[in-house]
């Protein structure tokens, strides 16, 4: 379409940083107030720790203490779950409630909105990691070195990109009603089969064979590597995660465009 030269007085935009800060804060407030969300993302890893982590805390697993190994596992589970849930269910619900329509009519950029959601999910994930680490220390005597802990945290946050993208893809593919079921059906078996809930060596042989092909297993490798249970640096795992990211980005983008064109074209 041809456009005329734009008049100089077309107008100003609101400053970006305060917008991003306010949006991130609002997203975090909503996460904290959302009952199911807190249950799955904070309570479940705590329960796993109590039932599976504590009894194995002083066993040696993959050359490190079972406590450290399982702290890394449940940290990975918590962040992966956060990404899958906030985006998979959150986006589907917003589409179902036509919140996207309301946002669309404002000068809020979609990118600012998405980054704000990511910031909120990461902040929530960080809090979960701190809580889990404190719990593991107080109940199981698990103490990571400061460097190990920092490595664990940033790897889990940055490495969650493919899971965030998988969540987005689901959020744009399915309806709000189906999203909870789909996210759980995709997430729970994948996290189980990747050894994030019960250590892989205790799972059936066929699961151990299949696990290396799952994104959550590769994600777990980053975490286990951070506490010394895997060969480091985890180059193969990063490649796998990058490949999964590319695939999920492609699916998410396509689903987004289809949703977009049905509503806004």
């Amino acid at each position: 379409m041809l456009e005329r030269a734009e008049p100089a007085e077309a107008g100003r935009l609101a400053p970006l940083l305060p917008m991003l800060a306010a949006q991130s804060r609002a997203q975090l407030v909503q996460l904290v107030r959302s009952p199911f969300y807190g249950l799955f993302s904070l309570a479940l890893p705590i329960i796993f720790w109590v039932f599976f982590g504590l009894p194995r805390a002083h066993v040696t697993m993959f050359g490190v203490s079972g406590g450290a190994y399982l702290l890394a596992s449940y940290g990975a589970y918590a962040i992966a779950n956060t990404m899958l849930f906030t985006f998979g269910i959150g986006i589907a619900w917003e589409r179902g409630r036509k919140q996207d329509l309301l946002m669309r009519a404002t000068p809020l950029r979609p990118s600012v909105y998405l980054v704000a959601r990511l910031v909120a999910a990461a902040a929530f994930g960080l809090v979960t990691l701190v809580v889990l680490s404190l719990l593991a220390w107080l109940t199981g005597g698990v103490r990571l070195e400061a460097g190990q802990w920092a490595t664990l945290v940033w790897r889990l946050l940055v490495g969650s990109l493919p899971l965030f993208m998988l969540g987005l893809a689901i959020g744009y593919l399915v309806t709000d009603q189906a999203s909870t079921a789909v996210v759980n059906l995709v997430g729970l078996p994948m996290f189980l089969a990747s050894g994030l809930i019960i250590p892989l060596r205790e799972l059936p042989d066929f699961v151990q064979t299949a696990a290396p092909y799952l994104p959550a297993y590769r994600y777990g490798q980053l975490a286990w590597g951070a506490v010394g249970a895997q060969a480091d640096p985890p180059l193969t795992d990063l490649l796998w995660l990058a490949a999964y990211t590319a695939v999920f980005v492609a699916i998410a983008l396509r689903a987004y465009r289809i949703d977009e064109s049905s509503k806004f074209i």
Partner: protein
Amino acid sequence: MPAEVVTFEHVSKRYGPVLALDDVSLSIAAGEVVALLGPNGAGKTTAISIMLGLRRASSGTARLFGVHPTDLRARSRCGVMLQESGTPELLTVHEIVRLFGTYYPRRLPAAEALRLAGLEELAGARLDHLSGGQRQRLFFALAVTGDPEVLFLDEPTVGMDVEGRRTFLAAIRRRARDGSTIVLTTHYLEEADQLAGRIVVFDRGVIIADAPPAEIKARVAGKRLTLRFGTDVDAALFAGAPVTGVRTDGATATMLSARPVDVIRHVLAARADLLDLDVGGADLEEAFLHLTGGAQQATNA
């Protein structure tokens, strides 16, 4: 000459086989209060969606403040109330109004936006606890929080009770008096008449009238006539009478007319067995039918 806020040049919009807007050209200047009026499915909401860049024109050009409607600079000067848009449920009224304020370069203090919408007492309420009418007021607060130069209101009073509607209309009028441009859609002629200085009537995707309220009212002041005869009646009886929308069912005929007395004269000249007669004000849907019928007669002539 005041600046153009909305410009449509030969805008058409097609949803699959349905032509929702058919070659519409329209210009709205700064400071105008314009009501887009029409029955459901007439194309009002499609028109407002294209003005805002929420939908893309299938052909033709739409501009907002002289730029493409999706341009964020143009959108930063608009406040919008849409039909059926949802809000996050877990925030409070005050939180979301303050949040929306950060999207705009100019903004009202959140308290001021709440006051304009009459929501002060609900500031701390969670959004999932609001009633339908309260939600409409919330959308109004969100629309004015960026202190916009133009307000787009799509069916703003739907779901409001009488009192709520009255306060709400007063708020919009105040906003208009302060120089804000307002574009609203409604299917209440009365509402359009109370608020707007200009009414644009849509019917099946085309503009069938674009005039000040007084002129529109004069044209749609149709009466609905129901005539009952002793024996069956044929629509041909009304040929030459000032009527539109004639429907016959056995001995009963219904129609619309701006001059019911002339119709009765015409009928009595031909039939002596008129038994019963009912004349009532046409509702808007019927009035539109009348307007459209009039337009068709004009083209045929």
